[in-house]
């Protein structure tokens, strides 16, 4: 993907792991439900099943990879105005929620 891990992304991922998030977090249902709602912003373009040229698939990714990419968009290190716009309003929890939701799709 030609992407370099940023210091922020690494810190964030480390934080996620240290917080036990990548195992079974407290409030997992709520996080999934938040992800399910926020995902509506993504599924206007990205398909849950199948894909089309021009819009990459985002299902079934490892949670940390998903979060890392969203952080890169948010910080403007990954180039795409629309995705940067999407990412800028996502909190860390939002990104986790989306990662968990999409991670469970298409499996």
């Amino acid at each position, binding site marked *: 993907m030609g992407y370099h891990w940023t210091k922020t992304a690494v810190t964030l991922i480390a934080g996620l792991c240290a917080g036990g998030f990548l195992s079974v977090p407290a409030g997992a249902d709520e996080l999934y439900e938040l992800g399910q709602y926020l995902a509506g912003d993504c599924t*206007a373009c990205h398909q849950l099943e199948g894909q089309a040229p021009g819009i990459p698939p985002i299902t079934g990714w490892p949670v940390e990879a998903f979060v890392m990419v969203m952080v890169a968009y948010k910080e403007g290190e990954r180039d795409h105005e629309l995705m940067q716009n999407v990412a800028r*309003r996502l909190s860390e929890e939002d990104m986790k929620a989306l990662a968990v939701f999409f991670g469970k799709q298409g499996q």
Partner: protein
Amino acid sequence: MNRKFTRREFGIMAGAAGVAASALAKPAIAQGKPKLVVVGGGPGGATVARYVAKDSNGAVDVTLIEANARHTTCFFSNLYIGGLRSFDSITHGYDKLKSNHGINVVRGFAIGVDAARRTVTVDGGDTFSYDKLVVAPGIDFKFDAYEGYSKAVAETFPHAWQAGPQSQILRRQLEAMDDGGVFLIAAPPDPFRCPPGPYERISLVAQYLKQNKPRSKIIAIDAKDKFSKQALFQEGWAKYYDGMIEWLPLNITGGVKRVDVGGKTLHTDGESFKGDVINIIPPQTAGAIAIAAGLADQSGWCPIDPFTMASTRVPHVYVIGDSSIAAQMPKSGFSANSQAKACALAIRAALTGSRAFEPRYSNTCWSLIASGDGVKVGASYEATKEKIASTDTFISKTGEDAATRTATAEEADGWYAGITADIFG
């Protein structure tokens, strides 16, 4: 699931209304599954029906009332009119909403809402009771806006602003037009469906004419002095269609005043413009059922609670998509789809007690200036007490390189596949 009301049930409901109208005013939740009725099967209505059915896992009885057997999307209909897409490729059925999500899809045209009894009546007389109602009828037209213009005239001078047979009329007229003819388009005043749409249409008709009837001209009489993505379109028109397009802002012509069908002429205060193909996109209002149901205010559009899309005028009714006053969100299929998801969340929370989150809205409008030359504008929005407010925007740049524009055009195609899957299942 997927059940239809029987005549006997109608009889029972009618009888109950006779003896105990007050009882009917209470939600039917205690008597079984809560009922959501959605009027209109476009990007807003089909999405809200699908999301409530899907995310409630069958806990809500969802009925979708739609006048047509299939829906032709207004977005991408300019690609059909310009010869880049087939009609079938922009037309979608409701089979998956029925089979995958158990939605009761009813073919009918909603003609009335009884807010006290919480019922919707369709032409033919069938009545559907609801706990919550979503009204998503899109737009209607002000056919009395210009002298000599009417719904009947729109069969000759199509608006093609509700996609379907109207788009087919316009396409056939363009195909039949002689080389050297004039395509005359009247663009509407704000607010209207799809702000960049008239200008994408001008672009793709220009491409069709340049390739097939290169001596032809396009004249646009606008009811505005500026328009969406104006710098991008005008740069593209100069690049691809130099000398073919004449765009006339309001401050030059004063706008269309009179329509002469026999003379194939549009009159402004001081001038007359003759066209071989005439496309009048008239001023617009909320869909007829929204107005009949008392959901619209004096502006002709429907005020809503920015957090839920609930009508501020009629309880237990929500208005999404083009008919709503979503403030800074443009009237677009993307906006309607985004509003539908926030609305679905609010409705599920109200009917089933599921979790509600702060609504997030977004919109992106892609437009083609030519084949393989796409541009886009978009924004994120949040609900405030006063309105749905824009928080962060972006737009394509003039002078972008060809690779960027090609990628944007491909992205638009991918978006079309994605959003239609999201709407229709």
